[in-house]
């Protein structure tokens, strides 16, 4: 089982969710986050004082998929989230040791 963490633009969330559901990935966790890679922020002015805002709103999406679904899931996410400009985000993959369904104690890939 593999975990995919994707940091994406908030405006792309709906498209990415739809793309994942379409390939059969139903479970996911969404967090509102702030961050930046190489994307610059912007300045705001209040009563003549300048404030740099460089922690930008992002969305972090976490899904755990069976090993044979990994490539399809990555393709779905990046396809839906890409605009081609700086700020599109990143995808990280890590190995998951175990998955357990709390309701009935199912373990392994059937718990996903």
């Amino acid at each position: 089982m593999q975990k995919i963490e994707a940091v994406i633009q908030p405006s792309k969330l709906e498209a990415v969710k739809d793309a994942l559901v379409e390939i059969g990935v139903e479970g996911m966790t969404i967090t509102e986050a702030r961050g930046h890679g190489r994307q610059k922020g912007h300045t705001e002015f209040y009563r003549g004082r300048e404030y740099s805002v460089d922690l930008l709103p992002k969305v972090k999406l976490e899904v755990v998929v069976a090993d044979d679904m990994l490539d399809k899931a990555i393709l779905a996410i990046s396809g839906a989230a890409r605009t081609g400009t700086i700020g599109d985000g990143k995808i990280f993959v890590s190995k998951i040791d175990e998955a357990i369904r709390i309701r009935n104690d199912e373990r392994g890939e059937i718990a996903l």
Partner: protein
Amino acid sequence: MGQAVPSAAPAAGVSQTDRIAALEKQNADNAVAIAAAQTAGDNGWMLVSAALVLMMSIPGLALFYGGLVRKKNILGTMMQTFAMAAVITVLWGLVTYSLAFGEGNAFIGGLHNVFLRGVGLAPDVKYAATIPLQTFMVYQLMFAIITPALITGAFAERMKFSAMLLFMVLWALIVYSPMAHMVWGKGGFLNATLGGRFPCLDFAGGTVVHVTSGVSALVTALYLGKRLGYPKVPMPPHSVVLSFIGACLLWVGWFGFNAGSALSAGTLATSAFVATHFGAAAAAIGWSVAEWIRQGKPSALGAISGAVAGLVAITPASGFVSPMSALWIGLIAGVVCYLMVVKVKAAFGYDDSLDAFGVHGAGGTLGAILTGVFANSAINPIFGAGKATGLLEGNGHQLLNQAVGVAIAWTLSIAGTLVILFVVDKVIGLRVSEEDEREGLDLSQHGEEGYDWAH
């Protein structure tokens, strides 16, 4: 001889004497009815005005200031204004009304009206002949409430609640009451209508409210020192939305503040109402244009700040100037206060957190001087019908009186505030601890969180 009596046709045998007596009685009854109608109109307007001025404090100023601070201090900031509504009210009833408006000397009232003795439903003809004295008292109370509340802007985010309460009680006694007495009280040194040595034209409180609060604010900001991290750590307003709502409530409420200062519902109230509105509008434009030029974009915060600056500046002038003069006063105030806030503050480096001095101190001083320029007897013949009032009408001498009023306000504010700060600091300490300041006033002073995200 004409038969002008509209009432009952003369009955057979009613003598001329009887008819004259009946007419005289009717006349007397009519006079009473007319006075009652006049009072009803004036009192209705004055009670509404009093409510409008209270609304300026709560929630107007509370929201305006609240939105400008960081979110960990929202409740603490609003509490400071709210506490004034409660504490100053009680103090006013007990003693400060008497000190401000009671009979006394040129500088302070006496104790004749403590516990509001003698403040009943009959008018005091020297103050306002057509409304109950209690209406006058409660209207003035709303001014006494908002004035100290304005000062809180200077020491936002770092003053102990307990110290603030003590400070404000002393300030109301030592600074506000004498200033109000001098400008508006019987025999006041600066009173333009009741025998002042230097008749200073201050229709609704440019000196009494804005100069005193603004200058005291500056003194407090300097004495307390800057907020932790200022100016390096960014501390932008946490909600310009709240400030926007507050500022709009201030604009509307200000009609009670200025037009209500006519103390009647007559034509002077109209003049003041119109001047107030025009001053606000021109100032919003003035600030916004200055900002647009200097920074490239006109901000919402700038527009509302400009409007407030204009309202401050028009306050002393409102019952004395024409609508066109009001536009000028507003425009000048918008630009000047903008520069005060963005250039002068940065140049001197003081942390007047919410620009109480930049807007109220500077705006009030400017407005008081401009009142001496633009005041016109055609609007308000305060020195007598046809007697020139302001500079442009031919009475340049009035500028001296205005300057004296402003100078006294500055001096009293500086001296009084310094003494009070020193005393309160020694007795209970003014500033919150570093830890409390980092945690925020909501938690450290009030055990609450303004915004509870976890639920």
